[in-house]
Every structure is written in C-alpha cells, then in structure tokens.
C-alpha cells in the first residue's frame, strides 16, 4: 500500500512540476488535469469516494475543459510551439 501511495505522490508531484515547466499551454492544462486525477485516486485510497468523485469530475474534467476553452478564446491554443496553424485544428 505504501508503494502505491508513494508512486501516486510521485506521479502527482511530477505532473505538477510539468505544469510549470511545459512550454505548450495546452499540454500544461492536460498536466493540471493529471494532478487532479492523482489527487482523486488519493481520496479513494483515503476512503472518501464522494470527495474523490467531485475532484475527478470538477478538477480533472471541467476545469481542464474551461482552461482549454479559455486558451482557445485567447488564441493561445497551439498544438506545436510557434505553429500558428495548430489552433485551426484544435
């Protein structure tokens, strides 16, 4: 169990680090969703399924969607760095 928790913490922290380090904003949004997903699994491990559900649905799903839509609205959603055409396919 401790190894599972340790892997989970490492994954979550790694994803949180990736949010800061990634140059691509869409990839950073996806990494932020991974952070929420890791936290949600942690809530399941701690026997709080209700909170885990909220975290997974709102943190990983909805906030990622809203952030991605905001990026598209601001014209920052590019699949490749410096690719102006990337947002056309998004």
């Amino acid at each position, binding site marked *: 169990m401790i190894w599972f928790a340790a892997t989970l913490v490492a994954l979550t922290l790694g994803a949180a680090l990736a949010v800061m380090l990634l140059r691509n904003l869409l990839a950073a949004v996806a990494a932020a969703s991974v952070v929420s997903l890791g936290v949600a699994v942690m809530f399941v491990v701690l026997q709080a*399924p*209700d909170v*885990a*559900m*909220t975290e997974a*649905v*709102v943190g990983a*799903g*909805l906030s990622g*969607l*809203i952030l991605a*839509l*905001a990026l*598209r*609205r*601001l*014209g920052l*959603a590019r699949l490749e760095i410096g690719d102006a055409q990337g*947002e*056309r396919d998004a």
Partner: protein
Amino acid sequence: MRNLATLLFLGGLGFLLLVITGGLVFGDPPMLIGRGIQQAAPDQVGAANIVTAVVLGYRGLDTLGELSILFAAATAGGLVLGSTRSRNTRPAGFILRTGVDLLFPLLLVAGLYVVIHGHLTPGGGFQGGVILAAAFFLPLLARPQDVPDHTWLSVIEGLAGTAFIGIGLAALYQGEAFLTPMLDKGVLGELVSSGTLPLLYLAVGLKVGAELASLLVRLSGDDEVTS
C-alpha cells in the same frame, strides 16, 4: 538577490508551517460529531450515503448557499463573456464526431445515475450535474455549425432552483424548519427512500448541469481572437 529573498521567505514559511503542524496532536480531540452523525443519520434521515444525509439533511441551508454562490459565479461569467456573436462553423473531424456520438448516451446515463442514486451511493447532484453538463457540451464540440438555442437551459436552471427552495418552503409549511427532510423515509438502501432528499438532489443536479452547460456554451461561442 530577489530570488534569494523569495527562497528565504519560502523557507521561513515552510519552517513555520512545519513547526505548527509538528505541535498538533494527530486525531485529537476525537471527532464526536462525526461519530454521532454516523450513528444517528440512517434512522433520522434514512439515506444510505451519510454524506448526502449531512449535505441535504443536516446542512441543507449550506447547500442552498453553495448553489447561490455557483449561480452568482455563472451569471458573472456569462455577463463577462457576453452573448454569442460569431460562431466557429468549421465541422469537426470524423474521429471527434464518432467519439461524441458514442460518448453522449453513456455520459447521459452516467450523469443521471449519479444524480438519482445520490442518497445511496457516493456522488450526487453536484458531481452528476457536472457530468450532465459535459454530456450536453460534447455535441457542440462535434457540430459547431448547429447553433443550439440555449434559452431552455436558463429555464431548466430557474425551475430547478425554484424547486429546491419550494421543497424547503414546503417543510416550513408543515411546521418544521426550512429544508427539513419530509415525506416517508422508506426502507434504507432502496431507490425510493429517504423522503425528499432524492428530489432535492435532482433539483441540484439539473441546476448545476444547466448552469455549467450554458457557461461552457458561452465560453466556446466566440471564435478565437487572432492577434
């Protein structure tokens, strides 16, 4: 120099927090209220999911506050984003369209299940409502050319909010406190049980779903700003 100051500040803050948490005794004082609620809730409220018993039974007023905060936030968001002006009319790719067609009914069933079984299993109006909002947003992503008329979303939202407050006022009419669970409690663990709680959660689910769906529709409405 500035980085050094920031590091020093962060280190000091971390040390302070560690000292404070080190001084706390873990699990002390014992949580008597939680234990009491866990023992009393199945008989008093009749919900198999204790969290729902707390959220809607004992603390219904807090849920109403939560709903009004969400309503205010969604309204402010809609106000800032404005109404839909120009719409992206490029059709989506084949994979997205097929995936949405596959996912839409599944998400609908999952969302409704989570909402309706809120008093039995983990989940409830808020979680299910968000799933429903995502389900109704997906077709817009796949077929942006079909501009949906989202006035009915505000109608559903208003009706659901009125229903929530109406159920609370009905308890007041019966001589109980505002939002006291009414009706027959039924058998613990059955779908039709715990009185008005499933109705309240249905109202919450519809309200949250409609609110977030209209927010997402507004947010996706405009084409991206090309600078």
